[in-house]
């Protein structure tokens, strides 16, 4: 298993900014890209990223592996991820604690899982298989939550901690998602942080959210477009205190 070789602050790289990064080479410590945006056979986007990886460590952040799918892992997609990882040799590889594929349809969203022992067995088996295939540690990110299943048997943080203990996977701690989930579902962000094993946290995400109205109730939506909220900044500081200097 490969170990983390990045530190400091990176940025999530989106397609419209690639030319600017190539031209200006800003002083960021590393770059993070969505795996699924670079699984094409060839072309300028992939070539630009191959140039950038010589100057910056990369983090490959997957959104489509559907680790929580009850009907099995999409093996063809795992192979595409493995080819991309071989090609780009990133410092970090991460995915989400969610599902997005059902009956062969990909729903393009990080859909919620019931946190039960049965789900834990499914996700653990999938994470183990991904780590075996990639030959490296996977970081698993907490999603933003908008609903809780009535049959849930454990809190999300406990689910993640157990997953990390069982599989040896790392955790990508998204402090904005913790803030959003706790606000939407009721929960204490500090208790959430306290339940995560510090040694497992290999990366921290910091992002913004929007405040929306749903049937007259305030609901926070993770939108990756809004500025980081003050409460999330302070949660980030407490995460750094607990987890040490993880790349963010």
């Amino acid at each position, binding site marked *: 298993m490969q170990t983390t070789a990045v530190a400091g602050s990176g940025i999530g790289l989106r397609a419209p900014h690639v030319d600017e990064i190539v031209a200006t080479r800003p002083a960021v410590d590393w770059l993070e890209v969505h795996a*699924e*945006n670079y*699984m*094409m*056979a*060839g*072309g*300028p*986007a992939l*070539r630009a990223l191959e140039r950038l990886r010589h100057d910056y460590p990369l983090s490959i952040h997957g*959104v*489509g*592996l*559907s680790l929580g799918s009850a009907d099995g892992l*999409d093996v*063809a*997609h795992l192979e*595409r991820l493995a080819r991309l990882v071989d090609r780009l040799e990133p410092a970090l590889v991460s995915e989400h604690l969610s599902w*997005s*594929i*059902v009956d*062969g*349809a*990909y*729903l*393009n*969203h990080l*859909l*919620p899982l*019931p946190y039960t022992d049965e789900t834990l067995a499914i996700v653990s088996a999938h994470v183990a298989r991904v780590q075996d295939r990639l030959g490296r540690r996977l970081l698993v990110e907490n999603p933003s939550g*908008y*609903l*809780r*299943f*009535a*049959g*849930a048997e454990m809190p999300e943080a406990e689910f993640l901690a157990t997953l990390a203990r069982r599989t040896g996977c790392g955790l990508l701690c998204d402090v904005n998602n913790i803030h959003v989930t706790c606000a939407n579902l*009721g929960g204490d962000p500090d208790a959430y942080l306290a339940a995560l094993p510090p040694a497992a946290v290999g990366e921290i995400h910091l992002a913004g959210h929007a405040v929306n109205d*749903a*049937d007259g*109730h305030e*609901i926070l*939506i993770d939108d990756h477009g809004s500025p980081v909220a003050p409460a999330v900044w302070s949660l980030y500081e407490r995460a750094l205190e607990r987890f040490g200097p993880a790349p963010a």
Partner: protein
Amino acid sequence: MLGDDACVAALDVAGDALAPAARVAVYRHHVLTSLTAALEAMFPVVVRLVDVRFFRYAADRYVRAHPPGRPCLFEYGASFPEFLAAFPPCRHLVYLADVARLEWAMNVALHAADAAPLTAEALRALAPGAVGDLALDLHPSVTLLRSPWPVDRIWRANQPGAEDAVVALDAGGACVQVWRRDDDVVVRMLTPAALALRTALAGGRRLAVAAAAALTAEPDVDLPALLREAVDEGCLTA
């Protein structure tokens, strides 16, 4: 996620101040809007032709009936042109599906495998004598399109910054090639002979057979010039 509200009742979602249906709606909204937005980005000229409100309506129907089969959104929408051709509310826009095919071909060109184009020197070196037996191929980024409608003019007239032009639908059909040249996607009209030559090469025909197809399309065509043009465009591989 793609069905109607009745499905929500079957889910074991905890309710409180906010009802389960409203919570599930947050996810459903994102699934449908993010996938229709992906199609909107993929087919900007179709969006312009039918207005964004109609496009979103049609795309929503398409997403529900044909959700992506794979998690890479740059691969999503291959069957959208066929869907538009059969979608009753816009079936009278006879050219629309072919415009969508052209836009899809641009997307294919952008993400196709890299391959070194055949150069004039390499062609000469390959074939000192038996040119006719050469099996050349088209660059992986190439799509050849033939439409009974002037889709290339419609497409050009709807590019950002293009002057408002009226395109006469009876202006004649179009033979179009879409491919990636260096890093840019190019849309170009082809003559019937050029289309015949390239279609035959794409089908694995020897150069002599492809040349015969070009002559059938245009009996007095200049064959060496036709081949030179294809090499200069960087759309052939050996």
